[in-house]
């Protein structure tokens, strides 16, 4: 299939991105480049110079809200992607509202407690909606350990499922970027299956 056809199909979908750190910023850029029509991005953090070792921001954006900086960066890549940003901490209360109209949700938090909260909330609210998580990406190397793990039909976790960040095992651009792009890849794959399904019916 030609890229123009892929892009035209992906333009009809909305993807929610929960967190705009290393996973969320890189995943959002990859999805915008692929032609996703609508991104809903939520984060309440600001860009810190320490984020630049892996997150899709620039030195002159240090101090900006991550949601605003990421929107700027996405618009420089693909101005056709519609972007809604929420400069707020995601909770069990606001997730149902913020991500209501998204076809797929990408979990892109840093803290495992937040990952669990989001997954429990999304799986209870929308059991049929795909949720693409990131789990296990600290350090460097071990590329072959990075994989997709499935739970049920709708939940995919990208990562090695074992390496947790610490002072001795920091998150770094190569491995975080791989996992963020694995998440974007899973989103594209799921949405493209809907195209072949449409064509067969």
């Amino acid at each position, binding site marked *: 299939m030609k890229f123009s056809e892929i892009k035209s199909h992906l333009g009809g979908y909305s993807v929610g991105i929960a*967190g705009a*750190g*290393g*996973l*969320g910023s890189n995943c959002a850029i990859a999805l915008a480049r692929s032609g996703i029509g609508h991104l809903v991005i939520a984060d309440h953090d600001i860009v810190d110079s320490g984020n630049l070792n892996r997150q899709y921001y620039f030195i002159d954006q240090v101090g900006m809200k991550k949601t605003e900086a990421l929107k700027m960066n996405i618009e420089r890549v693909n101005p056709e992607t519609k972007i809604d940003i929420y400069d707020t901490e995601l909770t069990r209360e606001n997730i149902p509202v913020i991500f209501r109209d998204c076809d797929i949700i990408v979990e*892109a*938090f*840093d*803290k*495992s*407690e937040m*990952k*669990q909260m989001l*997954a*429990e909330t999304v*799986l*209870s609210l929308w059991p049929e909606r795909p949720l693409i*998580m*990131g*789990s*296990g*990406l*600290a350090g460097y190397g071990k590329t072959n350990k990075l994989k997709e*793990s499935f*739970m*049920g039909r709708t*939940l995919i*976790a990208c*990562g090695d*499922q*074992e*390496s*947790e*960040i610490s002072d001795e095992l920091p*998150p770094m651009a190569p491995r*975080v970027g791989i996992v963020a792009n694995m998440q974007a890849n899973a989103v594209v794959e799921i949405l493209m299956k809907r195209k072949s399904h449409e064509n067969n019916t």
Partner: protein
Amino acid sequence: MKITLNNRPEEFVQGEITVSEMLRIKRFTYRMRLVKINGKLIKKDEYDKAIIREGDNVQMLYLMSGG
């Protein structure tokens, strides 16, 4: 009892156990995770009540910090 834990057979001396007990027995307590019993999501605040019985299919997904 015999159960399936992440697609592998697993045996416990107990006849039935809660999710919390299983995590203690398997020394899984230090990690965050998602748990399903026979395809049904068990939320974190239900770990003390949710019972795993003979033949159950238990799935766990580990949630590691970092992103």
